[in-house]
């Protein structure tokens, strides 16, 4: 059971921090309300009952989501490398830099072609 004690402590600290921040914000923060703030939050797009356009997702939302997924998933290769970083040594570092450089080439293309602009 001893082995799990640090994890429990970590969990307790995380919970205390989360609850503490919310309580602190509600006690000390300014309270100004407007319409946008009161609307249901739906990860960046307009809430669903949307008469115009038949309630479909706007195309730019799709684009952003796709770009996010394709860059996000590259992280999968960073985890095993990070875990055995010291064991792999300089070879692992160089190969990983090459890998990240290729991802950045794709990023440069997306950026220059306006894939990251919302409007």
């Amino acid at each position, binding site marked *: 059971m001893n*082995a799990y004690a640090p994890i429990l402590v970590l969990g307790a600290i995380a919970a205390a921090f989360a609850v503490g921040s919310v309580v602190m914000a509600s006690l000390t923060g300014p309270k100004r309300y407007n319409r946008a703030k009161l609307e249901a939050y739906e990860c960046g797009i307009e809430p669903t009952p949307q008469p115009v356009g038949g309630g479909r997702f706007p195309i730019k939302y799709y684009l952003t989501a796709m770009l996010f997924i394709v860059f996000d998933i590259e992280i999968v290769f960073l985890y095993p490398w990070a875990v*055995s970083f010291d064991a*792999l040594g300089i070879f*692992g570092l160089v190969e990983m830099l090459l890998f990240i450089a290729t991802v950045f080439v794709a990023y440069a*293309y997306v950026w*220059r*072609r306006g894939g990251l602009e919302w409007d």
Partner: protein
Amino acid sequence: MIATHALAAAGGNSPSIPAPHIEYGQLSPMLVVFGAALVGILAEAFLPRRLRAATQLGISLAGLVGGFVAVVVLAAQGHASTRAGLLAMGSVAIDGPALFLQGVILLTAVLAVLTYAEGRLEPRINGHRIDAFAAQAAAVPGGEQEREATREGLRTTEIYPLTLFAVGGMLLFPASNDLLTMFVALEVLSLPLYLMCAIARRRRLLSQEAAVKYFLLGAFASAFFLFGTALLYGYAGSLRLGEIADVVSGVAPVTPALAVTTQNDALLLIGLAMVSVGLLFKVGAVPFHSWTPDVYQGAPTPVTGFMAAATKTAAFGALLRLFYVAFPGIRWDWRPVMWGVAILTMVVGSILAVTQQDVKRLLAYSSIAHAGFILTGLIATDRRGVAAVLFYLLAYSFVTLGAFAVVTLVRDSKGEATHLSSWAGLGRRSPLLAAVFALFLLAFAGIPLTSGFTGKFAVFQAAAGGGAAPLVIVGVLSSAIAAFFYIRVIVLMFFSDPQPSGPAVAVPSALTATTIAFGVLVTLGLGLLPQYFLDLATKASIFIR
């Protein structure tokens, strides 16, 4: 307790892992092509629009020719024969068949890229030269945005880096020595091709539809490949083709887990069947051929030519390596099935070709029939079979590329005139072009003095020597059916009257002309003086394990 242990292991004191050995020099053909693709993406990102097309063509040609030079240098150093070996910790094999097919793929790609850059066929718009690809692939066909993009003379120059990525995958595919590398190569070559199908300038609906069909069926087939891989891994406990072969033939040391899994032949047989489905889909063998005619018809014609030639070469390379390296031990199990597939492919391809009214669909069914002929060489299961398949792929690639390049030239006001009726009397209007196309058709039919004859003779001879004589009889019969139709097209071109409102033959620039000339040269060369290349294929026909 276990948790702390794992944390400690991850936290620091872990023993150093020996760095894997990567032979960059021997992987250079692939590295050069992928490097050129990345440079192409950067050029696409940072260059002003007017410079892009020319720069991309230069980058692509430099990358592909550089890759080809690397292949030739590696072959000259003996990496195709005496110094052949497994690289990158055994996941890539550079040996005779791999280098031979890489050379074929790179040459094909060079010629295909030349046809991409052809700017003389479409009429100029506001002084801008345009090519066979959509002005803006994201614009809705017929919409205002598309009209504006067309007026400004935009071009989809992304086609060049996409092609380079596809070529990189194709180079890796026949060289991959484990199922993981093979799967990644399969996807790297497929994903760009799906996109390239969707960006024709004319008939965009057809083009998008082709891309959707190709994508959905292709993804379906690669899912089969992956599940088959999982089952084979379950059977053999390894993804390496050589180690799978050892487990299959019972040479490998038996671990407790292997003792259980190798009891279960279903894992092996179903796994092999599913992996084969993925590969047979790519070569377009019946019954996994249904995408071929639609995709060949809908894709922009230069892309169709590239796809028909290079994808088939790469996929047959992978198929050969899979069956010859990993599964020679159970050839009595897979040979009967491949017999069936080969017979179906030859017969269905040839018979359906007879009913086609569209040149591109006709060539698609012809490519299906050719996949069947090549499969007969694969079934020979000996060195002569490998050599015959390698030679056939070399011959077929250039004929196909040339034939599709000719298709781009026969045009009317709506773009390419692909309906066969509009090819009537072409021989009167443009005797040279019609003669060239007739030569390609004769090569498809396998008439002597063309490369098609030598190729067919080689595969049938190998199949007969390998104990597949009935297959050869079916092959000759279906060649006869197909020949009937090819000759009907030739008769249509030379002995019927041209339609008054028929298509005109566009005069190409030196780019397309080079591709067609090279096609003619190789077709005649391999037909008249095949010995050098037959010897080369024979020398290159040993798979390393």
